[in-house]
């Protein structure tokens, strides 16, 4: 049977790292790494023990918890059987079992605004994972090499570099505060031993270099290594400094600042496959930049009407095609996606293709336009498809068919009856993102109550998981969640009314090659991976 209880628990969350005095005090709780490798525990069926090592350092053990863990454990087996039978989603193979790997961030319940994660992004190899937060910080996690004595475990992600990317600013001309919140991070294709990423807040895009240094120069002529000056008269020979090995140091340095090109808020950046340009989109315009030139950018799309009162739609997201350097798409608040070909013209105000699904007159309501607004658009790795996320669904479009999506997946259709209250608490304007797995066979997006959804395109199956601390036992298998949609609520189902709308998963990322996913809840980053046998 090979359930979690039978295998060695390899790397695993220990309580010590929850302690906030370790890092949270110095640099924001977001960077706090709550897992640590090295502590291996021989464990068979030790839910209580292992649980106490994960959660209990923050909260004193409560008997009820322990007993409920036992229940959960029992359920796990049940659910696992179920997930096999339903051939759960995964990287193409039908029997991927998702299990918990790590959770990052502070575990206490009061969330500092600055710690709220605002973007998550793997680099092109998946070795690095970057997050940005509302406090303008970027934290980069690096995957540890796989341990030889534990071949069933993939390497864990540990903090590699943390830096303050953006600071709050004030635009004195317009009397506007500019938040430091990181809206998007995009990695550049690797060009040498260093890594490069673009990060942006509402107005300014920055190019960062993350590099390693393991040598430092030693030897001065006029002073000692400790800084004391020598008597110049004692200098009788010249000394050339020599480089000596030192502890590895990771440096993040700002290389370029692309500023003053956006009047509205930047919602997307996307690096072109030509490796030398990228686009940045705000509500009404899309600009094209050269990565080495900061003093000029080209405006390629401008949908601002001459009279702002005639404004009916805004740009919500934009992305370059993964390998056609001339093609990009942008989505709008009206639910349309426009594909532009930069070969045709220098200005791309005229689109080449427009993807739009005719509205179903039966579903027409006051909220139709709001919920049809697209919050994210992503090309598949193959470049053949693109995926869009609107409020209630994920749609997959074939680039060759403009009239309707080839696939539509309902993310949380049960909320359709709740739109009124979601409008009142502004949740209806939440911008959920979506992502593809490495071979484009599964897509993932977030929902409320810290649920996230996966849709297997080949098997036409979907599953709901929850990112919660209660499952944060290393390598514990995630159990699918069910939401009762009217009628009688079954035992393991959750009622729509009990969903917590303050807990939402807006940002998710999928490792480009492996079944490893990163899911951002408010201020925690969960990493899940498939179970290796």
């Amino acid at each position, binding site marked *: 049977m090979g359930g979690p209880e039978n295998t060695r628990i390899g790397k695993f969350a220990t309580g010590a790292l929850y302690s906030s005095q370790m890092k949270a005090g110095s640099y924001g709780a977001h960077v706090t790494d709550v897992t640590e490798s090295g502590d291996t525990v021989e464990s068979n069926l030790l839910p209580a023990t292992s649980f106490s090592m994960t959660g209990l350092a923050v909260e004193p053990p409560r008997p009820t918890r322990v007993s409920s863990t036992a229940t959960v454990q029992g359920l796990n087996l049940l659910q696992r059987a179920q997930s096999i039978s339903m051939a759960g989603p995964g990287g193409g193979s039908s029997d991927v079992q998702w299990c918990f790997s790590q959770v990052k961030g502070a575990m206490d319940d009061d969330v500092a605004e600055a710690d709220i994660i605002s973007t998550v992004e793997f680099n092109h190899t998946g070795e690095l994972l970057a997050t940005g937060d509302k406090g303008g910080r970027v934290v980069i996690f690096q995957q540890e090499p796989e341990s030889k004595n534990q071949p069933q475990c993939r390497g864990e992600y540990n903090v590699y570099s943390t830096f303050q990317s953006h600071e709050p600013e004030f635009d004195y001309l317009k009397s506007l505060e500019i938040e430091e919140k990181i809206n998007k991070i995009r990695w550049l*294709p*690797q*060009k*040498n*031993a*260093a890594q*490069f990423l673009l990060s942006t807040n509402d107005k300014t895009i920055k190019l960062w*270099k993350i*590099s390693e*240094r393991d*040598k430092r*120069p030693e030897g*001065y*002529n*006029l*002073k000692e290594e400790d800084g004391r000056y020598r008597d*110049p*008269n004692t*200098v*009788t*020979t*010249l*000394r*050339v*400094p*020599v*480089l000596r090995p030192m502890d590895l140091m990771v*440096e993040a340095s700002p*290389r370029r600042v692309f500023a003053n090109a956006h009047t509205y808020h930047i919602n997307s950046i996307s690096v072109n*496959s*030509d*490796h*030398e340009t990228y686009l940045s989109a705000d509500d009404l315009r899309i600009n094209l930049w050269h990565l*080495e030139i900061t003093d000029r950018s080209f405006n390629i799309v401008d949908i601002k009407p001459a009279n702002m009162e005639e404004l009916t739609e805004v740009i919500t997201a934009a992305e370059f095609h993964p*390998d*056609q*350097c*001339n093609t990009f798409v942008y989505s709008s608040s009206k639910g349309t996606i426009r594909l532009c070909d*930069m*070969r*045709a*013209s*220098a200005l791309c105000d005229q689109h080449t293709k427009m993807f739009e699904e005719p509205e179903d007159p039966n579903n027409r309501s006051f909220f139709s336009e709001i919920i049809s607004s697209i919050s994210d658009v992503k090309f598949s790795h193959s470049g053949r498809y693109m995926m869009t996320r609107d409020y209630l669904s994920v749609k997959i479009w074939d680039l060759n068919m403009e009239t309707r999506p080839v696939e539509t997946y309902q993310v949380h259709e049960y909320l359709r009856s709740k739109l009124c209250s979601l409008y009142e608490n502004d949740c209806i304007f939440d911008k959920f993102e979506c992502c593809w797995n490495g071979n484009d066979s599964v897509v993932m997006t977030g929902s409320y109550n810290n649920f996230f959804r996966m849709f297997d395109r080949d098997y036409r199956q979907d599953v709901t998981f929850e990112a919660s601390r209660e499952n944060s036992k290393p390598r514990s298998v995630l159990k699918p969640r069910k939401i009762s949609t009217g009628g009688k609520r079954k035992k393991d189902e959750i009622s729509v009314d009990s969903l917590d709308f303050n807990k939402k998963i807006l940002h998710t990322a999928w490792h480009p090659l492996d079944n490893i996913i990163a899911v951002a809840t408010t201020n925690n980053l969960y990493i899940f991976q498939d179970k290796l046998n």
Partner: protein
Amino acid sequence: MAGADGDDSLYPIAVLIDELRNEDVQLRLNSIKKLSTIALALGVERTRTELLPFLTDTIYDEDEVLLALAEQLGNFTMLVGGPEYVHCLLPPLESLATVEETVVRDKAVESLRKISQEHSPVDLEVHFEPLVKRLASGDWFTSRTSACGLFSVCYPRVSSTVKAEIRQHFRTLCSDDTPMVRRAAASKLGEFAKVLELEYVKTDIIPLFTALASDEQDSVRLLAVEACVSIATLLPQEDLETLVMPTLRQAAEDKSWRVRYMVADKFSELQKAVGPEITKNDLVPAFQNLLKDCEAEVRAAAANKVKEFCENLPEDNREQIIMSHILPCVKELVSDTNQHVKSALASVIMGLSTILGKDNTIEHLLPLFLTQLKDECPEVRLNIISNLDCVNEVIGIRQLSQSLLPAIVELAEDAKWRVRLAIIEYMPLLAGQLGVEFFDEKLNTLCMAWLIDHVYAIREAATSNLTKLVEKFGAEWAQNTIVPKVLGMANDPNYLHRMTTLFCINALSEACGQEITTKQMLPVVLKMSNDQVANVRFNVAKSLQKIGPVLDSNALQTEVKPVLEKLASDSDMDVKYFAQEAISDLVWLAAPKEMKVRMLACFDLRGACRAEQDQTPDTCPHPDCCWHVERCRTRAGLSLPWSFELPQSSTPAL
């Protein structure tokens, strides 16, 4: 060398070496720029064994430091012991050739190319060529892009086996996965083709060229156009049709406007490379298409080339081709919807008149010029006006003057000050071509009006415009037309206008000469020293300092001196300061040679200045140490009389 001279000479070098790793970028940069001094002090042996290894690992530094380093190493051959040891420079340059900053990489490649010439043929194969191979097969695309620029320098000097390898490496890079590398290869394709044997150009380069020219990324394809020029020059005429023209035709009709833009941009070079026959049959229709392209950027690039293209057409039927093929397109462009296209055309269209001759110009081009002179976009009109000289030679400017004047007046009064500024700059040219009479009648008022423009940059430009006009029309003309108007402004209620008078006087005094300056300008300046606005008063002091050299000594002594002395005790600090400055300057000017020597001698000059005693106050690079005559006077206990003879030239030599 090293250490032989004792501690004294070591100290500065020690400082330089330590500053190689100073925290302050500027100090590191300074040290790197003096790397040759360091190397010289260390001697060739230690430079090779200690300095270069250290530099090889210094690639973490700021771009500007790395850039300076890459440049320095290109001139380091003698410092490592001459050509015999030049290969020691390869490791640091190799690591610099892989950094992410393009400018640094390019500089490293440039230096590598330079020192490749200093390698013996043997060293080239033993040391340099392996480096090129390493870069070409590097993991990161930065190193592979750098390799592209190195093939052509080693190819001619290696054995045929190595040549074959180099060709193979280049082929590989041309089909690299990364567009950056393919672009680098495409941009070096022409250069590489030039050093290849003709047979290999045909067997190797042409397939690569064709492949790059049909690359999936238009950013690569557009670079193939550039290569097309060099390749076409290398091939015999009979091969062009089969080997190059299909690709060129395809590029001229590429789906991507950027590729067509590149064709338009390189059109003159292409035209020269393929020769007259192909130009007639192929390029003329291609050029027509580019002039009618649907993308404005392409039309603008083609419009820019109209004159050059026409000039380079074979003379026997040039006129016929232009009249029947090019001119119709040009006529359409004159009323293009895009202003960049029109303004690109306007910047070259006048040049056609010399090619087509008087009759054609009057009949066909003149209407176009006139249309463009009335264009709604100021840049178009400006471009026409700035090129009037071409037309002037062929048909005389009078033909245009009727339409010219309204155009000029409109630009002169344009609401955008940059437009006004641009037209002012063409005034001297226009004045020269239109003649004094026309100028006095029509344009003089405009020139005077700019003097009281509300934008300072315009007033300033108007002032220097007057100087140029006086240089053109002479002092007498100035005395009759300009000077009275300028001096009249001295009584203007607006102090800014009164200051303009002073600025004009500063600018005009030299061109007008001593007589006018002393008799007409000086009294006005002196009178203004009583102005109630301090800005005017200190500008009086500045003016007196400026026009002093033009005045005769009598005026200086009897009129300037009392006024400056009065200003030197003004209640306003700035007025005082500038008055003293002027006094110092004029005293120095008036001092006889012996006095100047004494003045300098009594100064505790810094070594640097001692060597530069022949400097004048204007050219001395150390204004804070020796030229403040006022201080000098105090220190020397000298009281310099005002009554020195004025030297003949305005810049006295010691």
